């Protein structure tokens, strides 16, 4: 038993060292990426680009399921982006509420018989396309319920432009988000297959006419933790991964893809969460197997504001879903693991994700058991334990603060001193419970996966107006379940 525990301890130490090393390496690459971004920004004038023919037209795909409360405002905001040629395709995925009707009423849409979309990718047959010439950039597809991936596929089939961009119906794009992404695309149009956007948490911000006007930190605890978590993941993580072309996920809330490649890999996968990670893995695999030069880029200054779940129930459900999606994707793509043919993606991204993301809960859990064992068998003394805990905490904290510094260096969205202090403080607080809960949720997600639970889980929607001060104080609070 002692030997076993000792052996485990050795492995665990190497594990922790490896993960810490990778984290710091990625953070380093993030800094490198941001540095070149800041330098490049001086020379790029995206304002002028927004009207230039050389930026390719984009089709925005907005899958909507039971979004009657927020959809109008979001579509209105999407219709006024700073971009020369784009279209907004809203896909009503068989909503049980009046999503379709409110859209038809607000934009005086009429059935458009000559547009049925060609079947480039398989998807549930659509019922009807709606259109109004007075809003020439808006299309609404009505189709029976088939899930988010299926909706996106239907949108791809109707889309008229070479680039597609998927956007959650509960998210708001900044006016310049598309043009900033197009700028990244145009740095290397031949090789860019996908670009991720930066997702930020809008809870706590003031929103007027579908535009985030005043950036504040959330007041509630759960969204606050998520704000920091997103910042760390997107700025400290994804910039770095994209720098070495090892990005494994482009957020489903906001990403841009080259349509031809998405069609080549058969579109989005159906009937399961994790479709956003899945499409990126498929793109990596496709390009690497055909030995085509490519890159999956990330554009941290293209911002999409989203509503974070603010209750335990919804947050845990979301995270369990992510856990399920991650496990499923990793299991299905285990053949990529450590195959030199798949380059950085196979040699680093996939192993990292399997060992340090997917299997993370098991290491944490066995670690806890081992710790109990060490104490029970009197193999440790409290000083060593304390030192280990302290080193662990400091590592994590330096990483978290590193992301905050990155934010302040490059983006400065949170300008108030108070917010900065709060962010630094809460970054430390997250070690007491929030990270542990994350492990628990992931584990529960795995259990759900093994029980073959394929549902989307609960997701409630709140009207954007709720955050706007003094507009009206009796907002309708949505409780539409989002079960796709």
């Amino acid at each position, binding site marked *: 038993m002692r030997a076993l525990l000792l052996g485990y301890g050795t492995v665990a130490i190497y594990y922790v060292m490896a993960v810490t090393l990778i984290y710091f390496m990625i953070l380093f690459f993030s800094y490198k990426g941001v540095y070149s971004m800041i330098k490049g920004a001086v020379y790029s004038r995206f304002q*002028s680009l*927004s*009207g230039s023919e050389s930026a390719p037209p984009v089709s925005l795909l907005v899958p909507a399921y039971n979004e009657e409360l927020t959809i109008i405002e979001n579509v209105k905001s999407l219709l006024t982006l700073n971009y*020369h*040629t784009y279209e907004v395709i809203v896909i009503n995925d068989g909503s049980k509420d009046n999503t379709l009707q409110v859209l038809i009423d607000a934009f005086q849409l009429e059935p458009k018989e000559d547009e049925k979309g060609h079947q480039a990718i398989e998807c549930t047959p659509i019922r009807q396309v709606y259109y109004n010439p007075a*809003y*020439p950039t808006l299309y609404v597809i009505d189709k029976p319920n088939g899930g988010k991936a299926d909706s996106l596929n239907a949108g791809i089939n109707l889309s008229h432009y070479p680039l597609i961009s998927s956007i959650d119906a509960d998210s708001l794009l900044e006016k310049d988000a598309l043009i900033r992404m197009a700028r990244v695309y145009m740095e290397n149009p031949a090789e860019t297959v996908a670009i991720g956007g930066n997702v930020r948490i809008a809870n706590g911000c003031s929103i007027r*006419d579908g535009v985030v006007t005043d950036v504040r930190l959330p007041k509630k605890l759960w969204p606050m933790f998520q704000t920091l978590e997103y910042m760390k993941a997107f700025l400290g993580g994804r910039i770095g991964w994209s720098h070495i072309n090892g990005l494994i996920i482009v957020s489903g809330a906001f990403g841009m893809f080259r349509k031809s490649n998405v069609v080549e890999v058969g579109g989005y996968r159906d009937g399961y969460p994790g479709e956003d990670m899945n499409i990126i893995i498929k793109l990596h695999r496709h390009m690497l197997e055909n030995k085509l030069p490519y890159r999956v880029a990330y554009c941290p200054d293209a911002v999409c504001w989203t509503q974070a779940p603010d209750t335990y129930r919804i947050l845990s459900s979301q995270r369990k879903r992510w856990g399920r999606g991650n496990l499923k994707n990793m299991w299905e793509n285990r053949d990529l693991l450590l195959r030199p043919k798949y380059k950085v993606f196979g040699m680093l991204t996939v192993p990292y994700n399997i060992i340090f993301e997917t299997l993370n809960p098991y290491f944490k859990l066995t670690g806890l058991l081992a710790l109990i064992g060490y104490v029970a068998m009197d193999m440790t003394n409290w000083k060593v334990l304390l030192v280990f805990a302290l080193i662990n905490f400091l590592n994590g904290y330096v990483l978290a603060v590193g992301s905050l510094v990155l934010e302040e260096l490059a983006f400065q969205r949170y300008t108030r001193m108070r917010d900065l202090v709060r962010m630094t403080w809460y970054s430390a607080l997250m070690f007491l419970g929030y990270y542990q809960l994350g492990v628990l949720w992931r584990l529960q997600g795995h259990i759900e996966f093994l029980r073959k639970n394929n549902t989307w889980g609960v997701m409630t929607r709140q009207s954007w107006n709720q955050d706007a001060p003094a507009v009206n104080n009796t907002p309708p609070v949505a409780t539409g379940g989002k079960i796709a």
Partner: protein
Amino acid sequence: MSNRNRDKGKRLNELMYEKVVERYWSAGDSRVEGEPCGMVLVRCRRSFDEAIREVRARLETELGGPVETILDPGGEQAVFLPFGVPRSRTHYLALLAKQTLSAYAAGEFAVMLAEAGEQPERNPRVFEKMADLFAHLPDEPEVAFFQEERGRHGESHSVLLVDGDEEMRRYLQMRFRMKGYRVLAAEDGTQGLDLFRQEKPDVVVTDLNLTGMDGFHLLTRLQREDPDARIVVFTDNRVESSISKCFKLGVADYITRPFSPVELEARIERLLQ
């Protein structure tokens, strides 16, 4: 300050008229013919003497020579007559005056920019009207513009400007005002449409990239309101399909940025003829 005693009993406009006539007629100097005649009218309700002295000193330093100054017997107003200084430069002088005055009497002053036309044939009634208008001008920290009435109907043309960029709006607003247009500015499509309904402007200058309502939709709505509306699209969007779409929607002109203000003004002027 000797002027004040000598000219007692006369009104400001009469004094201005006298000075201008003195300059352009009595001298009989052919050099001054066709020379511009800028005017900066200032009003200051606090520490008047001191402030005016300061403004005058500032203008004289700027121009490198003396500036004809008239003090109103009422004791609150003064007029600077930088003879021979073109309008754009006079505008700058007015801005200097504004800056100086805001240090002396923040919120209690007014500045108006005017000129006496290019012909040395000066109509006393213009001065009367100018002085009247200035007397009724509320105290505000912006330079107001005096414009002689144009056209037979005695009305200036109006231009509705719809643009989300505040800098651009302010710049064009200033330029259009100097052209003598009445300018209505809107920062988004909804506001623009409201102003269009209320004021029926002669020309609409609009961007396509707007908040609240997209540009193409605004064009459709404007057309629906008034099929004869004269609309100039003024935008970053240089894509051919957008240009042809706009002309299909009935716009009169399409100007892309980066732009030449002179061209923009010339095109608007052509539409107004």
